[in-house]
């Protein structure tokens, strides 16, 4: 741990901030404190922590390894679907048992599963439980699937893609195609996951009806904060040692690392699968707080937003991803929630609900153009770790070649 603290100076600061923040929120919460923060806001904070978590995963795969994956939100959604299946099944089972308790004969297992299937799949006009719901009755089996399904998908996809040396923008487009295929597949009613209705009512934990949502929400906030903390530690561990150096090397010059004898594909595959699993765990924590998941959540655009958060926060540094995800998603909630005051320009009143997206798009362009380090770059300003001032024409053919003014010094 001490080595980790030494190699990752941001880790103690991050831990301290997270712990203080969690305690602060707990004190201000309705369930365990003075009630200054509403339950819905605590849910927003919990969800934001999950998004920060998946942003760290994205930072690992993009900022550190250089794979611009436009599919990590698909893994996030898949994790949500896996946990959602158990939540929905278990809760429906309780409701069904409740309603069947009044029947003159105690229900048989067959009757119970028929009634559950009817309840869940009534909306899409089916009455049988599809094969994919085989393990939905068991929490542990479904938790295992949270890891296994996205993990296997990432493994197969990554193996295919890296093996044939698809890199750069081609890989981005390929991952985007995978995401599109997955969301189109889930949009079908016969995919067995309720088509475009998605899974709903996930905020009601089975058997916890007596516990108020205020309490449940703070529990989920704690869990999300803990998961974020652990992810940060794991990510810091991954990027700190030799392994971290190798993946950064892959990002900067893949061919050179390969010539040095490292199995580049293996490294990339490991990072890809690891981050897919982290994303899935984030999704499994996020969607019980959101309450509903449908295929639109998995659409390619969501994964691109993920890249936007990391880029705005500053890729290649773990805290940058966290800052980006928190700032952009909280600002988005604030602007699109209609809380932001309108901006009168005299001839036209800017309603932020309509124009926030435009602002986000253009500010993203500006960040990409003028501040490639993102918000995390501000930390560099404070700590006086500035990049060399690379003005003037390049002296060599490569992008990294010395420039005229550098050579003069």
């Amino acid at each position: 741990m001490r080595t980790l603290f030494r190699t990752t100076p941001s880790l103690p600061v991050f831990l301290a901030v997270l712990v203080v923040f969690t305690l602060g929120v707990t004190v201000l919460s309705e369930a365990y404190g003075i009630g200054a923060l509403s339950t819905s806001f605590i849910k927003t904070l919990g969800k934001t922590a999950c998004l920060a978590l998946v942003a760290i995963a994205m930072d690992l795969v993009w900022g550190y390894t250089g794979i611009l994956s436009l599919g990590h939100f698909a893994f996030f959604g898949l994790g949500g679907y896996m946990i959602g299946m158990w939540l929905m099944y278990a809760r429906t089972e309780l409701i069904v048992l409740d309603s069947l308790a009044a029947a003159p004969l105690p229900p048989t297992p067959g009757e119970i599963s028929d009634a559950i299937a009817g309840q869940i799949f009534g909306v899409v006009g089916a009455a049988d439980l599809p094969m994919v719901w085989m393990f939905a009755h068991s929490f542990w089996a479904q938790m295992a699937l949270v890891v296994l399904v996205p993990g296997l998908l990432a493994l197969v996809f990554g193996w295919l893609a890296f093996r044939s040396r698809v890199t750069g923008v081609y890989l981005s487009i390929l991952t985007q195609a995978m995401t599109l295929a997955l969301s189109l597949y889930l949009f079908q009613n016969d995919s067995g996951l309720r088509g475009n209705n998605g899974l709903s009512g996930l905020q009601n934990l089975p058997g916890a009806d007596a516990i108020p949502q205020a309490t449940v929400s703070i529990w989920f906030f704690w869990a999300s904060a803990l998961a974020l903390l652990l992810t940060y530690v794991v990510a810091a561990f991954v990027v700190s040692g030799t392994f971290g150096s190798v993946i950064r090397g892959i990002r900067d010059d893949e061919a050179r690392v390969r010539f040095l004898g490292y199995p580049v594909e293996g490294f990339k595959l490991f990072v890809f699968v690891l981050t897919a699993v982290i994303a899935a765990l984030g999704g499994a924590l996020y969607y019980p707080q959101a309450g509903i998941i449908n295929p639109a959540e998995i659409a390619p655009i969501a994964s691109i937003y993920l890249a936007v958060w990391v880029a705005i926060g500053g890729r290649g540094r773990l805290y940058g991803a966290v800052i980006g995800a928190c700032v952009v998603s909280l600002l988005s909630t604030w602007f699109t929630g209609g809380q932001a005051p309108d901006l009168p320009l005299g001839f036209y009143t800017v309603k932020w609900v309509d124009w926030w997206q435009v602002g986000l798009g253009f500010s993203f362009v500006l960040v990409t153009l003028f501040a490639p380090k993102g918000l995390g770059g501000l930390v560099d300003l404070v700590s006086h770790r500035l990049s060399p001032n690379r003005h003037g024409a390049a002296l060599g053919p490569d992008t990294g070649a010395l420039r005229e003014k550098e050579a003069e010094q």
Partner: protein
Amino acid sequence: MIRRLITAALLLVLCSATAQAQDMTIQDVLQEHREALEKSSRRTIGPVIDAIADSDLPAARLVLERWRDREMWQREEDGLFFYGEPVDRSTERLFDFETGADVGVYSTRDLDQLKPNSGIQAMIAAALVTFQLDDPDPAQRRTALEAIARSGEASHLAPLRRSITKETDPVLRAEKERTERLLTITFGAADAERVAAIEHFRGSLFLDVRAALNPLIATTTVYAADLPPDANVKRRLRAGSADLPVAEAFALLVEAGLATPPPTADERKSALVARIENGQVAGIPVAALDTQEARDRAYATLAAQGDVPAWDPQFSEARAVEETPFAEVYTEPSAAVTTAAEETLRSINHTVAWNQVLDLSLDGLSLASIYFLAAIGLAITFGVMGVINMAHGEFIMMGAYTGYVVQQVIPDYTVSILVAIPLAFAVTFGAGVAMERLIIRRLYHRPLETLLATFGVSIALQQIAKNVFGTQVRPLTAPDWLDGALVLNDVVGISYIRIAIFVLALIFLGIFLFIMQKTRLGLETRAVTQNPRMAASMGINPGRVNMLTFGFGSGIAGIAGVAIGLYAKVTSELGQDYIVQSFMTVVVGGVGNIWGTLLGAGLIGFLQKGIEWFNPSNTLAAQTYMIIFIIIFIQFRPKGIIALKGRAAGD
């Protein structure tokens, strides 16, 4: 009462009068059915219409027409029927049906109008059809023929056959003969003529032929042990085969009275519920009945006591129907007709299959040209320059909205499309040039960041479109001459818009090839793409060339937007629907080669239509499988169908 007597007397007189003339008049026929006419009820009027139509009197048609048009009147004083023409609001001039003679002007108070309701009017119209078949006016004859073709009846057959010999118009005659054959298939009296009519339609693609033939080969599955000897059996069946599931066979057996269905699980359950005593059923506590086995045991105990219908837990429907013969029997009794129908349908299906392949190819071709059109701009910006432009889809959308705005200003659709195409090019060319100058120029060494920055532009443009035009679908209407479809037969057809898009795609291919191969800009573009520094040394301004090339690619996206907007919905999300497929098209085809893009579009278009054909109800599944196929395809040809070799490959 007195009036009735008088009319009866008058009737007698009239009857004797016609008896003398040795011939019935139409008035006699009407009087014969007078009560039914006065009552005018749909249930009883049928025989009256038939009597009038079958009377073979020259005035019959006139009566039916006037009656249908509510111009037939009954004189109250003697009950005779006339047709009238209104003089003014309360008086009518009456005419005799037989002679057309003016009978005089009467007040409507002394008359009863016959008011057939719409049901009766339809019946009269059907009877009139046979008269219209011989009408001197060809238009009337055609209307009548169409009415028969729409809803033919057995009674139409005889007048239709009669009218064929009298028909002078060769086209109408051919159509009459065809309709006659169709009617003969269904209503013909002798098997021989029906078989002849059926066989005449071998290989025909018309839907009405199939509609006439299909009822002939309709079958019912029956229990076959006691079939009548003359039953027209299609084939014998065994229960449990793919064509006759066990459950269906058992239901047939029950229907035939040869088996009693055992009590179902629900019936057994309610029997158990009905016999709960002191929390016990047959000595078993209710709480223990939470498995199917326990319930079965309890029911068996009850059955043994004789309280409930017997039930054998070992009973299986499969065994009950095992040795029982079943057969598929045609509803049509004549074997000759069904054999001929089966054979003809087989030949028809064969022809239909070939035509469906043709139709599918046309569909695939048109989808391919849409993808090509959407991707050709990308083939320039991404394929030639290597710039990932995620806002390409939004340029397509801008083109479509430009078309919409132009249509708001210029109401003539043809002119507005002609104006919209260059205008859309200009707008998106401008947008492309602006984007190249402001954003892409600064990121040429960072392709991944180009992707992200252009994505930022994409979401901003999308939201701006949403703010300006709203979220609802905006219409981009095609001119009249693009409406409709080129219909080759009842199976193969393609809409003119799709043909136009195909032609447009071809034109663009030509323009692209011309500019790239034959113009200064194309030469400079290729030079700058291959080696910007060397090109610059040769006096080419790489910045200017890049700007123009990018603008050109974006401009083509705008024109594609107008074309796509003509048949798809114009919304702010229009571009998003095409962007991934467009990139796929370019990547699959092979970056940097227009022929590759063409092949890629063809592959994707035909593939998607092919998959849709296997599973027609589900276009989502088709897209899913297509993308998966592409991902696998890229495994084997990572550089696309046509990979650049040598120096042009750039690595």
